[in-house]
């Protein structure tokens, strides 16, 4: 595919060569992959790391006396250091490896059920993914705590005045996504954290959708918990991270019992291991953790500022082109948003559009995007969601626009 130079001087042509999957065909057409908010594609550098691990030093970590085990342990712990550095955590033991964001949120929610009392309040935003709603509902059912919701505005932003009104000395925890998965809205997390801390509440930010686009500095944000999934940032599935401030991680009880997370075990009493192992029961996704480190190296090698600038160029280009289609409405029009466009055309069902453009090689997400409250707000069954990554091009957007127009013609 011919790739024009970009306004931001970003060399997308070179970047694309790192992603073998981008040269495949789907249904006879060159793949146009615009489902990056669901999962990102994997560069050769990360694939090589995975192959290298299984080819040279696959072994269980932390316990072995043999060389292979030591090599694997070193690589895994090296990855933890890379993650610490990337998110600027103060200490490496504040980085807990998890299976992903959902696991990380459940870990915190489960821990808080021991700290929260009946009648106390937790606050969630209307923009959340189900994975940042359901664990807290379960927490409330278990403890008798009360769940409050920050309402949203028509443009997909949060109603911050209402948030202010919800806060009180009863508020113990606020959990909000850094970026909305359904709409791409970047939430004013700094303000949310400051206000929540003002009443003594802790804040968990679901960073799954932000991390591929925005380099969060957890100390600068002063956030208490931050969660990410590797597979949304060029890493493999099944691995992610919970960042937690040391003081909070010490307060939370362990999530799962098992090997690795103990200090001593007798039938009378077990003492738990120190952080981070207290929360890392069992053999972890060793290769996944190491590959996550490689993915961060890859993205940092390009640079998050460059990535963000180029993705915005794509977002602006696609937004203008899409709005030229008659009857098309974009949901989520916040000034601060990542490269995600959620839309519908007239009363066409998103599923129909998604199915037709898939036949033309274009991969998008359709449906409620695991954010039913957002869809209920707009009174729609779902949307078509195109989400861009730094390896996408304007030429691909042109193909996508033509595919959408063709689908519209077929379905109207």
């Amino acid at each position, binding site marked *: 595919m011919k790739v024009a130079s970009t306004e931001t001087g970003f060399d997308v042509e070179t970047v694309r060569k790192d992603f073998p999957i981008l040269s495949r065909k789907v249904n006879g057409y060159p793949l146009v992959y615009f489902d990056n908010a669901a999962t990102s594609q994997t560069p050769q550098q990360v694939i090589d790391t995975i192959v290298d691990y299984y080819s040279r030093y696959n072994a269980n970590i932390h316990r072995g006396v043999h060389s292979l085990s030591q090599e694997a342990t070193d690589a895994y712990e090296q990855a933890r250091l890379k993650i610490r550095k990337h998110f600027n955590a103060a200490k490496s033991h504040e980085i807990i490896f998890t299976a992903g964001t959902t696991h990380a949120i459940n870990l915190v929610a489960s821990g808080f059920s021991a700290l929260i009392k009946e009648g106390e309040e937790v606050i969630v935003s209307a923009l959340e993914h189900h994975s940042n709603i359901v664990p807290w509902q379960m927490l409330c059912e278990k403890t008798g705590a009360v769940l409050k919701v920050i309402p949203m505005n028509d443009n997909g932003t949060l109603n911050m005045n209402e948030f202010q009104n919800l806060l009180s000395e009863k508020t113990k925890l606020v959990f909000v996504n850094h970026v909305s998965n359904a709409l791409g809205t970047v939430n004013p997390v700094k303000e949310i954290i400051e206000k929540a801390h003002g009443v003594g509440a802790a804040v968990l930010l679901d960073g799954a959708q932000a991390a591929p686009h925005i380099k969060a500095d957890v100390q600068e944000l002063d956030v208490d918990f931050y969660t990410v999934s590797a597979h949304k940032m060029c890493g493999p599935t099944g691995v992610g991270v919970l960042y937690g401030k040391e003081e909070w991680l010490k307060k939370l009880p362990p999530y799962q019992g098992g090997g690795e997370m103990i200090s001593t075990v007798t039938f009378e009493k077990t003492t738990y291991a120190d952080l981070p192992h207290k929360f890392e029961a069992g053999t972890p996704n060793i290769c996944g953790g190491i590959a996550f480190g490689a993915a961060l190296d890859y993205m940092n090698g390009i640079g998050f500022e460059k990535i963000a600038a180029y993705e915005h160029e794509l977002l602006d280009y696609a937004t203008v082109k899409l709005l030229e289609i008659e009857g098309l409405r974009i949901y989520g029009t916040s000034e601060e948003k990542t490269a995600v466009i959620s839309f519908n055309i007239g009363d066409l069902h998103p*599923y*129909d559009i998604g199915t037709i453009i898939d036949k033309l090689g274009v991969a998008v997400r359709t449906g409620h995007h695991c954010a039913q409250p957002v869809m209920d707000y707009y009174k729609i069954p779902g949307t078509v969601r195109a989400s861009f990554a730094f390896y996408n091009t304007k030429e691909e957007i042109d193909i996508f626009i033509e595919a959408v127009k063709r689908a519209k013609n077929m379905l109207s």
Partner: protein
Amino acid sequence: MSNIKEIQNEIVDEFEMFDDWMQRYEHMIELGKSLPLIEDKYKIEDNLIKGCQSKVWVHAELQGDRLIFTADSDAIITKGIIAILIRAYSNQHPKDIIDADTAFIDEIGLKEHLSPTRANGLVSMIKQLKMYAVAYQTQLN
């Protein structure tokens, strides 16, 4: 009255006239327009088929020893798919519906929709039609 196999063959023959997926989909969309529509009073939660990204309602009732299906969907392609199924299975004896195979779906080039994990729920639709047939078969016995 044609039996299920004859109708299936007829549908396969129709689809064979088309060279590419686009024409097949256009035909499917056309077939959706001739779907015997479910009455509004039956568009209830209980008649919704689970496992579809779009909504699909199906209603069944016996007329003599024949099972009559009506349906609707809020998505056009899904409506086409259920229309094809109903054309083959409606106005048939429940026992024949239970025994019918679904190979014709593959033959008309909709094989990709046969995956149980596919979001359109074609497999769920077939299962639901057959469940109705099983239920009404016991009434007939």
